[in-house]
């Protein structure tokens, strides 16, 4: 199971990094989403992978348990990355509609830099 989870994180991260390095906003946003999936699984796995165990200590103190903290962390991370992705889509859409251009790089000559 470990090798499966680890390699899926690796593949997600690799795809994410490849997409992030593209020059248009849409693949970049997809890349960010993939990266955030990868990091969510990674965080989840940082509490060790176990099966069929409760996320709380048994009241008799017997047996093992799965670490509940990474689950809480991952929940926070999911909410944040979800919100951020929605936000970046909106900003990218605004940028595309107002400049008819969805390249992520900008030319920075001072003539075109005036926006105030």
């Amino acid at each position, binding site marked *: 199971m470990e090798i499966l989870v680890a390699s899926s994180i690796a593949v997600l991260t690799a795809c994410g990094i490849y997409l992030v390095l593209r020059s248009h906003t849409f693949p970049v946003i997809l890349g960010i989403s993939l990266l955030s999936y990868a990091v969510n699984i*990674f*965080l989840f*796995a940082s509490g060790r992978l176990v099966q069929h165990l409760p996320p709380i200590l048994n009241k008799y103190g017997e047996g093992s348990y799965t670490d509940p903290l990474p689950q809480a962390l991952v929940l926070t991370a999911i909410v944040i990355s979800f919100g951020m992705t929605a936000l*970046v889509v909106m900003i990218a859409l605004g940028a595309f509609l*107002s400049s008819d251009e969805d390249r992520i790089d900008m030319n*920075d000559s*001072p003539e*075109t830099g005036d926006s*105030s």
Partner: protein
Amino acid sequence: MSHLIILPVVLPALVAPFILMAIRHHLDLQRIFSVAGTLALVGVAFILAGQAADGDIQVYELGDWRAPFGIVLVLDRLSALMVLLTSLLALAIVLYAIGTGWDKRGHHFHALFQFQLMGVAGAFLTGDAFNLFVFFEVLLIASYGLMIHGGGAERLRAGVQYVVFNLLGSTLFLFALGTIYAVTGTLNMADLAERVSSLSTEDTALIRVGAILLLLVFSIKAAVLPLHFWLPGSYANAPAPVAAFFAIMTKVGAYAILRMYTLVFGPDEPVSKGLVGDWLLPASLLTLAIGMIGVFGARDIAKLVAFAAIGSMGTLMIAISIFTPVSAGAAVYYIMHSTLATAMMFLIADLVIERRGRALQPSLRMPQSGLISAVFFAGAVAMAGMPPLSGFLGKIAVLQASYGVPEQALIWAVILVTSLVAIMGFARAGGIIFWKTLDPQEPDDVSDTDLHTDLTEAKSPIVALPFVACFGLLAGLVALTIFAGPALQYSEATAAQLFDPSSYIDAVLGGAEK
């Protein structure tokens, strides 16, 4: 347990939704409440700084959960100082935004600004690494909104870059935290410090990876050289008051490095020995050099100030990366100077841009040229680190701190040469902006800038307020110079506290048993 510690987080967190929900259509009320909230924050910050000044470390346990299990806020000298600096800066910027009418060029400026204040104050106060991440996100998401405030195609595109870069930074932050948690099983900073120091030396590969990942994250925030790409484009295209407030955001990165790499991954810790300083110092030297060369080469006033901000971060990071108590003291002093000076330069750049356009080329003489040139001159003196202002004292302190370090010759050479480059760069910019004015009789490309001037004259109803903000920041710099003795003493005491992590750990973990 005093509840005052959490007030810098709670107060903006209450003011912001109130502005957003109850008075969203009343700009005047928004302004009143925003200023009042910020003023109250200044007051709270002063009280907190007074409490922290005697060297006590106060711990606030949220929900009364004991330290390694619950989240704690920790008030020591450094965090109190940073909160105070944030609140003073915020006050100047709110006044500037109101005075220039920036706050009515888009919606929700004041609400977003308060949210950002909450994030920054929280990041400075928290004693928990994951909580630090959360507050980073709070301040970032508010800053995304502020960054594109006012709209415009160019600004939106710069905003996309800024958001994407910071999202990548956040992802990296999570990877770092996951790695650290996997090794230590805790994210409370004091608890981390204890566990990291008790790790056996064979077991440290993974935690070292985590430490370096974390350093990368904070370096992105602090715009240290290979990771500075986002800064010039974003800051130059952000609305001016926002760019000025971002002066404290780069310092959040510097603060986090200073905190984590003295407390958790200390310079004498066997786990992290030679891990950070050796890499950070060359990067900081390069940051300083690139920043000041950028000042010399910029063709755009806002870019010029953005590069000056990078340069001043470089100086600050040099002081931090030496990692001795003396250098950390210099760094703390330089943080105060650099924040005020950078913010002031962004505001002045905006005053200039509003009157003559942002390209660094001769144009018509602008209104209030004399007054603006005076503050520009003072700001340039401060940024370049010339006497008599505090930049000079800060640089001397940094030079002094590097005395006896193996790389001393290199550090001195870079700092002194870049100071010269910065002086030339600012002199060139000032000469073009204020002296090379076109004759109004000559018709070449005048009509464009003329139109611009007319537009902005109509836009700024309260003319005095922007200058009040600029001179307020300048007064801060002057105060830092006049009261350099006490300020440096406070900085040294702060550094001493940082390099004695046991008091921090005892305060956080020991307080739990009471």
